[in-house]
């Protein structure tokens, strides 16, 4: 269906395209565009004024353009620079220097449903272009923004090739609904919930195709996206074709990654010594008899050097009257964990022709990608640090020749609760997936012939993803010895469709020295998921009975229908006013609660124009005030307002007589569930001094979320569930963001830029109850590994989400060691019990810091970027699980390995809930250092080349004792993270 709609939308421009041709007498203009330092500007636009003729410059800033003989004026423009007009009546070779003086204000920024001059922005929007992206081997688009935007936190889940990231804009505004921002690609809000077989749907978009990413932070910027905008919006815009001769770019990159550091565990010799001493002391030889003679480094056994390549070729220019850009990319990346691999093939095509004397602009954007994963069994990471180092990797047995712990006696079966050979976990499992994704849309902008101030805009888009995979566990694997291996298959399809129709009216009112524009529109979106269920197979392809699904497939879907409007008023270039309103109706809620209204208002005052018009020091100064209401409905069930009954699986039946009957169970529901709503206030100041040598912005914000979609305890007997996601509670975020870009040195040969961004954010739960209860402590959250059902965090009123809820450790004053099992009697009632747990620290950072610098000297460039978090604490679950002697002398009669932390703490048994394991995880990471050299013209001037080299994940500065202080879980639980590799890359970029 969506494809059909798209084709229909495509036919129209295709037909039109056939009707055009052009012929005239021409002359050729050549030249070079440079910045004020004389460095050639690549990708600058050179176009003939009032025409459709144009081109872009090569890497070194040169261009060549064929224009009609009678042409008079060229317009030269480039993102970040002031445009210039050049008279070419009598010359054919030009040299133009573009200055950045006031340029940033003229820069065009992509905003909700349109674009805007940066100088006219009224909301908190940060736009990042390729120059500022993170450099090096970047597998997934969101990684381009790491540390680059104040208020934006991006944390990847670890080093997995093709893995995903946690993205938070101004902290999370929700507890149980999603905290992920809305992602919009070329005007299509895309699927962010992921799909089976993909670790990260953003990795399906080729970073090389991205022209800009706009991060919309406050409600006045996001409110036009209404009910999906509470967590901010990231708008990704891909590169478009430009008019002129077809030009090609080829870039290729080779990389090699390795694990920078292993987890500190005991060696085989140390284990032997420890156990022998213990046996001598206790006279119990149980464990001594289990010792092996090897000294295996299991971590060395499971990790590898990870090689990768990334190749992209693109062509852009125009064919006839149709500007286009086409690109193909292929990337193949190994993970540092053996067997892990990620491959991506992408194709993108953008067409942006104009018709009827530019009355109709057409923008067609098609992106096709295929990603293939081989997933490593990440259980190997944890097993490698806990597996007995006195044992060899291989041994002659029926489990593929990998050493395994076997039960005593002659049955030769693995011990069920022991750990497993880490290398076998990897090599005896083949888990592959394939995800195809197509994002395509057609945007028409039709300026009415009889009323050119009025535009009719149409945007039809689809986002289709199709994921499937096979997970094969070898028949000799000890993990699945009971079924002798396991084969499972899965498949999922997501089809999202969008149809937006809107009217845009744009008018200059010269008499009032004002400009106004209005937008009204209607949007309809459909989100359809198809899940296919399959049984799993074991020995000799025999079906595993409990895996037989009740239903072969399921098709959850939801729909969203919206009306939206926006008005912009610009008075005298001094006062800017923006008002928006969106009305959303969602199928996730009952008809009574379905509709929500999301307004916003913003005002900006250009102080520069008012107060510093003649000042040379003040390049720009603008004050912004914004207020808005947004909603949130992602992350909750599609049918949670409906009473429903579900059928149980084959292993959940009850016996009556000799027959078994499946259960039919009533499900909990909340008939009155609705959006959560966030009200945001924002005050911002944009500034630029001394000809942009110092520029930046300061924003202060407050977000108050009401009717939180929280999972709260239900009064027993009031519903069919004892916990339900319902609208209760409030959360508040407050913060300050500062971004500062400086140019300490700027001269002909040498340019040095230095940028910082800084964020302070504070999140507090202000209510969680429908009924007052003075004794309410909170809702336990953050399940940990170890024991059953232990939780380490809490949602408590007056505290940040996931605040740790722990016992206060008592230490031996002589040795400084924790006294095992001894905690402070917080409530002084003479006994240590649950009531003595206290709230201590939180996982979310107080401060974020991003820093980057770039030095250009002649044809060389040197850059570095880093980011840090401060005030974030983590629960070291690896230490609490493995920093005990019990981890070595496992009670189930096998030997394991312990963290070296055991030597410090001396813990005998696991003490999971002590604050001893809550550690300060503040850190600063140098993300990359990169070096570039412009070789210049090669192949007899047919091409120009640039060479780059980079190191990623250069260093981490932290006091945290675990392997890596940066983890992506909101809960702040660190447990056997897939290590982030240090990656060395070398790249070549060719323009021809």
């Amino acid at each position, binding site marked *: 269906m969506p494809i059909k709609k798209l084709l229909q939308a495509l036919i129209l421009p295709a037909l039109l395209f056939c009707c055009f041709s052009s012929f005239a007498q021409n002359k050729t203009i050549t030249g070079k565009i440079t910045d004020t330092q004389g460095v050639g500007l690549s990708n600058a636009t050179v176009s003939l004024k009032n025409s459709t003729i144009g081109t872009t410059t090569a890497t070194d800033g040169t261009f060549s353009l064929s224009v009609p003989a009678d042409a008079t004026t060229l317009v030269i423009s480039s993102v970040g620079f002031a445009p210039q007009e050049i008279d070419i009546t009598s010359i054919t070779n030009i040299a133009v220097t573009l200055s950045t003086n006031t340029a940033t204000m003229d820069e065009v920024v992509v905003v909700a449903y349109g674009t805007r001059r940066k100088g006219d922005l009224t909301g908190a929007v940060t736009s990042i272009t390729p120059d500022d992206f993170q450099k090096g081997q970047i597998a997934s688009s969101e990684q381009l923004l790491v540390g680059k935007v104040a208020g934006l936190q991006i944390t990847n889940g670890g080093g997995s090739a093709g893995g995903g990231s946690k993205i938070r804009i101004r902290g999370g505004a929700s507890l149980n609904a999603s905290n992920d921002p809305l992602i919009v690609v070329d005007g299509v809000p895309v699927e962010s919930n992921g799909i089976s077989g993909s670790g990260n749907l953003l990795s399906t978009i080729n970073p090389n195709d991205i022209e800009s990413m706009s991060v919309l932070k406050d409600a006045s910027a996001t409110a036009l996206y209404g009910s999906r905008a509470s967590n901010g919006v990231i708008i990704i815009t891909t590169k478009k074709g430009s008019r002129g001769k077809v030009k090609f770019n080829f870039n290729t990159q080779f990389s090699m990654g390795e694990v920078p550091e292993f987890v500190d565990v005991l060696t085989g010799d140390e284990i032997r010594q420890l156990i022998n001493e213990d046996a001598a002391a206790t006279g119990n030889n149980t464990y001594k008899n289990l010792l092996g003679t090897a000294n295996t480094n299991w971590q060395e056994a499971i990790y590898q050097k990870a090689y990768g390549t990334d190749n992209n070729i693109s062509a852009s220019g125009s064919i006839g009257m149709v500007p286009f850009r086409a690109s193909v990319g292929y990337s193949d990346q190994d993970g540092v964990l053996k067997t892990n691999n990620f491959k991506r093939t992408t194709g993108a095509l953008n067409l942006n022709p104009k018709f009827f004397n530019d009355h109709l602009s057409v923008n067609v954007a098609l992106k096709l990608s295929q990603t293939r994963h081989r997933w490593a069994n990440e259980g190997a990471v944890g097993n490698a640090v806990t597996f007995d180092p006195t044992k060899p990797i291989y041994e002659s047995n029926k489990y593929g020749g990998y050493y395994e712990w076997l039960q005593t006696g002659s049955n030769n079966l693995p011990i069920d609760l022991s750990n497993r050979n880490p290398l076998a976990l990897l090599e005896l499992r083949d888990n592959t997936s394939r995800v195809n994704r197509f994002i395509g849309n057609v945007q028409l902008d039709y300026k009415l012939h009889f009323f050119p101030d009025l535009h009719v805009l149409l945007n039809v888009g689809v986002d289709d993803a199709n994921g499937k995979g096979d997970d094969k566990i070898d028949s000799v694997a000890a993990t699945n010895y009971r079924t002798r291996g396991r084969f499972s298959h899965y498949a999922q399809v997501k089809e999202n469709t969008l149809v937006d*129709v809107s009217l845009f009216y744009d008018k200059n009112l010269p008499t009032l020295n004002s400009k106004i524009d209005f937008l009204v529109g209607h949007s309809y979106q459909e989100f359809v998921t198809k899940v296919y269920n399959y049984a799993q197979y074991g020995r000799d392809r025999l079906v595993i009975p409990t895996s037989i699904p009740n*239903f072969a497939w399921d098709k959850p879907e939801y729909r969203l229908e919206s009306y939206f409007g926006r008005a912009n008023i610009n008075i005298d270039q001094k006062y800017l006013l923006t008002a928006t309103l969106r009305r959303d109706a969602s199928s996730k809620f009952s008809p009574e609660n379905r509709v929500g209204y999301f307004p916003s208002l913003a005002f900006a005052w250009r102080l520069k124009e008012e107060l510093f018009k003649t000042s040379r020091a003040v390049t720009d100064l603008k004050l912004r005030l914004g207020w808005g209401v947004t909603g949130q409905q992602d992350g909750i069930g599609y049918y949670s307002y409906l009473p429903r009954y579900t059928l149980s699986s084959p292993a959940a039946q009850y016996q009556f007589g000799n027959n078994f009957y499946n259960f039919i169970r009533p499900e909990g529901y909340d008939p009155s569930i609705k959006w959560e709503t966030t009200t945001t206030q924002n005050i911002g100041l944009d500034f630029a001094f001394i000809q942009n040598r110092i520029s930046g912005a300061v924003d202060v914000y407050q977000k108050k979320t009401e009717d939180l979609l929280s*999972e709260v305890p239900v009064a027993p007997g009031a519903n069919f569930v004892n916990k339900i996601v319902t609208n209760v509670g409030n959360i508040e975020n407050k913060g300050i963001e500062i971004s500062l870009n400086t140019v300490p040195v700027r001269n002909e040969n040498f340019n040095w830029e230095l940028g910082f961004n800084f964020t302070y954010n504070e999140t507090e739960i202000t209510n969680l109850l429908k009924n007052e209860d003075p004794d309410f402590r909170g809702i336990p959250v953050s399940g940990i590994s170890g024991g059953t059902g232990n939780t380490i965090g809490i949602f408590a009123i007056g505290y940040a989400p996931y605040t740790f809820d722990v016992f206060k450790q008592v230490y031996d004053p002589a040795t400084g060691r924790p006294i095992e099992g001894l905690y402070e009697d917080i409530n002084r009632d003479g006994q240590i019990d649950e009531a003595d747990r206290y709230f201590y620290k939180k996982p979310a950072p107080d401060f974020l810091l991003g820093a980057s610098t770039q030095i250009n000297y002649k044809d060389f460039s040197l850059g570095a970027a880093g980011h840090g978090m401060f005030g974030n604490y983590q629960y070291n679950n690896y230490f609490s699980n493995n920093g005990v002697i019990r981890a070595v002398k496992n009670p189930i009669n096998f030997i394991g390995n312990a963290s070296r932390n055991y030597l410090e703490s001396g813990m005998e048994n696991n003490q999971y809930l002590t604050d001893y394991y809550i550690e300060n995880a503040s850190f600063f990471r140098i993300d990359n250092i990169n070096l570039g050299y412009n070789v210049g013209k090669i192949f007899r001037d047919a091409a120009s080349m640039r060479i780059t080299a980079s190191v990623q994940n250069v260093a981490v500065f932290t006091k945290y004792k675990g392997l890596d202080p940066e983890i992506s879980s909101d809960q702040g639980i660190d447990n056997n993270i897939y290590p982030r590799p240090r990656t060395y890359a070398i790249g070549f970029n060719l323009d021809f």
Partner: protein
Amino acid sequence: MKSRTIKHLFIIGIAVISLASCAKRLDLYPVNDLTPATAFSTPEGYRGVLAKIYGGLSSTGNQGPAGASDIQGLDEGSQSPFIRGFFNHQELPTDEAVVSWNDQTIQNFHNFRWTSSDPFILGMYARPIYNITVINEYLREAADAKLAERGITGSDATAIKTSVAEVRFLRAFNYWVMMDLFGKSTFITEENLIGTELPGQIERAELFNYIEQELKAIETELAAPRSSEYGRVDQGSAWALLARIYLNAGVYTGTPKYTEAITYAKKVIDAGYTLSANYEELFMADNHKHSNEIIFPITNDGLRTQSFGNTTFFIHAASGDDHGEYGVVGGGGWSGYRATSALGLKFEDRTGATDKRALFTTSKFGTSDAQMQIPDVTVFANGLHVRKYRNIRSDGGPVSDVNREFSDIDFPVFRLPEMYLIYAEAVLRGGSGGDAGLALEYMNRIRFRAYGNSYGPGDVGRLTSGDLNLQLVLDERARELYWEGHRRTDLVRYDQLTTSTYLWPWKGGVSSGTAVDPKYKLYPIPSANLSANPNLTQNQGY
């Protein structure tokens, strides 16, 4: 001209697309799930919900062994199941059980240190009330008017009406659990609709009256004892529960009802139940063959009723490396639960050679005095290892689960010997209508079977009228019914749970045992429930 045509086409196109989208409906329904109307449209639908009501006692959710849990936010395997939760609450704070694990607050049970924020107690409060909530829904949907409206008539309608009496029994049973463990309870009937109001609370004595009335009201509507298909409750179950609540009426209401206890115990005894010949077969994989003795079982099946919290829990939690003797291969032993020496000392012969109920010896662990000691509760090897439940068939046939991980053993809620013991105790406590001679005979029937259908060498097992006293009945209950979920209730009735009258190893967290606060005779109302429902009030002392 061409451009004008295209322009018009274009505008029409926009209009069509926007109209098409406006016409779309936002009322969407799931594909596979049922609505209340479709779920109850057929007799099979009713039976599916009935299966859920019974299954709420054996399974934890809609997926076996775990997943789609009925109770959210708690550990599905250990905190939301009925049998495992009931066992933890009834046995762990007694001489019959200790656990080696460190799972959250599990050690607090034996140590008598639990609080109102305990997740296990939260789960135990949630489970019976959940079952009752589903029962009430069933009762609403099984009303005569609804059946008529749906065109369900004849034998289908009759079967559903019988099932109404069964689910009312199950509601009374779930409320009994609440009354026994928590005293007062959240109180809901079919009159309380979903999501409209906060449930009220009922005091313990009133709840006693409600349970009594309900059981008497359905007495005649239930099938005659042993006349319905296996697994379904009948009059025998209702009488047995009445006998049990009457025996404990003094605890529940302050007014003893021993006479009624005698009446109803006798009703069950005279209903045709008989003792099976072999005690240990009552707890084996094919114990469904013993419906002559087991009055109401919660059925389990290793393939079709999988859970980590039904009898599967017993065979894993009680075993370690010796799990083969429990019929366990898959999943292995969990090295968790044992009994204290106090239970062992109730048996003159702990090896099981004479009193066959002493099911304690395994290939790994013995029953010597030294072996029974518990220097460290968290060391599984310490203590008396109970091998009562075994997923092995007495006929040597294969169990349902080829991996031998999940249990086929049905959990006996009521067995005939309990009725004998109730009769004897009620007679000793002065109930009228009973007979001391008959009481002695009943006791001896239990002993006779226990000693291998003899009284053992020199008739050591036989009791004489001089032997019979209340303490002996209590000890006999321990020997006969240990690990079946009776011990805490019994110790409360004898006022030995919290007092210093009777101490056992690690009672109150002290190696030699200590008296504890009498508030621990009842469990606290979970604090999360007090927050969610201001109609609930806390038990004294918490």
